[in-house]
């Protein structure tokens, strides 16, 4: 379901492989070292927006077009649908288990069902755990009284019953009237405890709480360590993080006969719709999912999940539209998290810094769910001929993990970047120099340029003068980490650009804008390709009924999956327009150009038609369609790179770490909107800083409950902790597709915590091997060093 590793899709299907091809030249790479490459593309593909492209709108910094809606409170999020929009709207609330593991022996919701204003009550009657996407309709019951024979809750916050009522308050009252008889069972929420053979079993069907993954092996790890002159071995730990998107999970569902409409706070309207179709056994044409604006997801909102299923179910039972939204506690118990990890890493290198072997064994908990893997990025970030990477999941009786911005990568980055800096110390090498020695061999690699500009902007040359030997109790340090992420952009993406006789232009696709600037990118690419001003384009997205499939927004794939499709659609629309106009201008369609909305014959700019004049000649609207074509091999498989540098100040008397500045150098090939690109980097860096210094989900082991499921005790970065963040964009254009760009959403959060940890270690001369770098840990480490 999660689109990571879509594989930078090259041609796969028989149609794609057999399509007529043509050869194109493109000038790619960095402007200072351009390379001319010849690529083979389908016949209808457009020339790449390469280094020679003269672009007027794409590449600039453009304020997001829905800005005015958002700053006036007019933008409608899922939570904002009220009875004024949907008469008879009911509010659903969920009764959740307070226990980490219990048998549900009896549920009596009769008093709740009888409460005036309550319109529907549903009980979860069967199963160990609750996953609405598998057989929802088989496990729910109307009750209102039930003595389930086989119902176990396996995490705090798991759904037990749902009510729908005329107001949120009545729904809450109804929940308090539901009497549940639980028989508590042994639980385990600490992943170290859960690994032990005598730990309470989380999943009855599993033979163990530990689920090892398949090790990733390259070369010969034994030989590799034998070849090493220096070997370091360390164990590092990172905690569970919570997404804490501003808008909680929410869905509003309305049935009309067998037609279902759901307004959803989701990262993927198409994936959500597909899940509804499967779960409720509906026809695809009868299901519509709409997301015009949503308040953040960061990976936690893919697919229908339980909230989407229960909203639709309650609407069905109540015969009225239903709004179901999690409150902040539910959000932080049951709506997803980033797994923790204990990572043992062993790194070997020759005296000159060349890596010879890397062995990492890691385990972590994804709660009752799966995929706590973290070592994958270690195979990509540096060159190492002999690798052994092993991940294990450990089940615990806690909320299931959901993908969180670059799943696994920030965890792995903390381990390998810390290890690289420790190795550099042993080898008496500059940490940047050590990394340079181990760059991967891949085309269009611009890491050297990124290191150089980042080092210059942070003042890397000051590094020898900083550190623990300075007089003041406030020590300063500088550290860095390399950002890497896999490219997943590619088909399918379908776009339609429509030009109407009144001059209006609409660019449509069933893709959603999470708040990353997708709408603006759609408008910019359309306007650029058509040759009209940005203001001329209206964007129509976020609605599956458009039937123009767009990607679910995960894996940093959206912008570069859709932009090439939009170019094709705009080009086709322009072609249709030119075909209509050519006779009137006494020319052939291929001789016409459109520039800033004026259409003329190439070479005769004086005789131009204005946009209004031109489109008035259309009797009816015309539409051009564009389908995203496969990525050009091997460019589609190349990772996304970056480098982040941090300068910190550590007060050795209080243990407080203050980040002074972060320089975030990132590539995205052709950047489409500079403004929203930088905002994405700000967001990724801030999340990474929160990881380094503040964030940590904490569980009470004996009660099996989340202690900080709120916004006051789960600490996130605020104005007092915000450092200066400088974003530097390096643009090696790639001929992967006709736009020449890459994604940014996730790479920008991968190395931040690692860079801060390296800076702190540099400042203090000792290292803390666990995040967050809280004052108590800093002081303990300093005390141990003294002793």
């Amino acid at each position: 379901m999660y689109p990571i590793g879509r594989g930078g899709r090259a041609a796969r299907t028989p149609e794609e492989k057999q399509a007529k091809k043509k050869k194109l030249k493109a000038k790619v790479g960095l402007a200072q070292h351009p390379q001319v490459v010849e690529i083979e593309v389908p016949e209808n593909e457009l020339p790449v927006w390469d280094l020679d492209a003269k672009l007027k709108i794409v590449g600039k910094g453009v304020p997001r077009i829905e800005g005015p809606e958002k700053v006036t409170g007019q933008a409608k999020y899922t939570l904002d649908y009220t009875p004024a929009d949907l008469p008879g709207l009911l509010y659903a609330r969920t009764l959740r288990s307070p226990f980490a593991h219990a048998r549900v022996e009896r549920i009596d919701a009769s008093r709740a069902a009888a409460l005036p204003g309550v319109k529907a009550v549903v009980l979860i009657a069967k199963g160990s755990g609750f996953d609405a996407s598998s057989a929802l309709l088989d496990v729910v019951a109307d009750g209102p009284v039930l003595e389930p024979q086989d119902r176990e809750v396996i995490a705090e916050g798991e759904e037990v019953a749902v009510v729908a009522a005329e107001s949120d308050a009545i729904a809450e009252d109804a929940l308090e009237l539901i009497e549940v008889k639980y028989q508590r069972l042994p639980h385990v929420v600490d992943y170290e405890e859960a690994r032990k053979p005598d730990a309470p079993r989380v999943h009855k069907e599993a033979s163990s709480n530990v689920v090892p993954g398949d090790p990733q092996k390259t070369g010969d790890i034994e030989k590799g360590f034998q070849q090493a002159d220096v070997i370091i071995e360390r164990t590092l730990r990172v905690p569970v993080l919570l997404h804490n998107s501003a808008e909680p999970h929410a869905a509003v569902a309305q049935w009309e006969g067998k037609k279902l409409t759901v307004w959803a706070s989701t990262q993927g309207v198409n994936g959500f719709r597909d899940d509804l179709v499967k779960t409720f056994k509906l026809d695809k044409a009868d299901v519509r999912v709409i997301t015009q604006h949503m308040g953040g997801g960061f990976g936690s909102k893919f697919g229908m999940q339980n909230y989407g299923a229960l909203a639709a179910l309650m609407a069905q039972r109540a015969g009225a539209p239903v709004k179901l939204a999690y409150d902040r506690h539910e959000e932080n118990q049951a709506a997803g998290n980033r797994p923790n990890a204990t990572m043992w890493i062993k790194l070997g290198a020759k005296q000159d810094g060349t890596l010879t072997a890397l062995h990492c064994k890691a385990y972590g908990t994804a709660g009752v769910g799966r995929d706590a893997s973290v070592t994958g990025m270690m195979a990509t970030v540096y060159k190492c001929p002999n690798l052994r990477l092993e991940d294990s999941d450990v089940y615990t009786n806690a909320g299931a993990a959901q993908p969180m911005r670059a799943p696994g990568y920030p965890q792995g980055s903390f381990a390998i970047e810390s290890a690289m800096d420790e190795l550099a110390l042993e080898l008496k090498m500059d940490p940047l120099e050590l990394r340079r020695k181990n760059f991967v061999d891949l085309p269009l690699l611009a890491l050297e340029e990124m290191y150089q500009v980042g080092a210059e902007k942070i003042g890397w040359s000051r590094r020898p003068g900083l550190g623990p030997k300075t007089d003041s109790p406030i020590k300063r340090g500088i550290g860095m980490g390399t950002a890497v992420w896999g490219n997943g952009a590619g088909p399918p993406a379908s776009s339609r650009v429509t030009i109407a006789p009144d001059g209006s232009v609409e660019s449509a696709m069933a893709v959603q804008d999470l708040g990353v600037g997708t709408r603006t990118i759609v408008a910019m690419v359309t306007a650029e390709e058509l040759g009209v001003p940005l203001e001329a384009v209206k964007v129509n997205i976020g609605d599956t009924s458009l039937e123009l499939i767009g990607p679910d927004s995960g894996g940093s794939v959206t912008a570069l999956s859709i932009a090439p499709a939009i170019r094709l659609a705009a080009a086709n629309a322009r072609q249709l327009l030119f075909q209509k106009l050519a006779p009137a201008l006494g020319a052939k369609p291929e001789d016409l150009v459109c520039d800033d909305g004026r259409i003329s014959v190439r070479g005769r700019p004086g005789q131009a038609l204005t946009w209004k004049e031109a489109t008035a000649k259309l009797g009816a609207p015309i539409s051009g369609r564009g389908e995203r074509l496969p990525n050009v091999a091997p460019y589609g498989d190349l990772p996304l790179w970056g480098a982040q540098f941090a300068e910190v100040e550590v007060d050795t008397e209080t243990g407080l770490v203050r980040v002074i500045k972060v320089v975030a150098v990132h590539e995205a090939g052709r950047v489409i909107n500079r403004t929203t690109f930088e905002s994405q980097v700000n967001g990724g860096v801030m999340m990474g800083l929160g990881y380094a210094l503040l964030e940590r989900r904490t569980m009470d082991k004996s009660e099996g409950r989340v202690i900080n499921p709120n916004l006051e005790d789960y600490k996130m970065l605020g104005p007092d902790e915000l450092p200066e963040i400088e974003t530097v964009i390096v643009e090696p254009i790639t001929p992967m597709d006709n736009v020449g760009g890459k994604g940014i959403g996730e790479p920008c959060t991968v190395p931040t915590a690692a860079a801060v940890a390296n800076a702190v270690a540099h400042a203090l001369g000792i290292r803390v091997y666990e995040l967050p770098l809280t004052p108590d840990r800093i002081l303990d480490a300093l005390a141990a060093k003294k002793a």
Partner: protein
Amino acid sequence: MLKTKKGKQKLSRRKFLKTAGMAGGAVAVGMLVKPARRAQASTTQRPPLGPGDVEVRLNVNGKDHVLKLEPRVTLVEALRERLNLTGTKRTCDHGECGACTVLMDGRAVCSCMTLAVNAQGKKIITIEGLAQGKLLGRLQKAFVEHDALQCGFCTPGMIMSLKALLDQHPRATSAQIRAAIAGNYCRCGALPNILKAANAVARA
């Protein structure tokens, strides 16, 4: 003992953790949590309001509204679900995130921590009250220009907190600006640009 904004008596934290769930639900340890239908004692000697709906008069963005709602209904609920002014967001319901910030007689308050009945007789301004038709206010314009928003969910609360500050201190310092929004959380990372936008307005 904790009293919630709804006027209910809650259990002590230790007992609470051991028994009832967060959203209610009685368990067979013998504890049945009954909502106490008593309004909390007020410092003025007025008779308690409720139970059941009472008449509430709210002045919002210059207009008077008369609503019938229970005394326990918060201002944010009244604004969003009854007056359909959904610009003010409800994200934590605990006064921790600032997304529900409105102005009440010029002061920034969390509308989730204010009972609608206690907002009577006050001038309430929400995000919808800032623009004049299509003409954006100065803060709103600056937010758009400096890309001081991403998903936009925290944005109304941010703008209201800053408006409260800048109305009182048009030349607010950088430190005052940071303090004003310290209670408004933003997960997308618009904070650097929010500070840029606010400082731009303060220095203009």
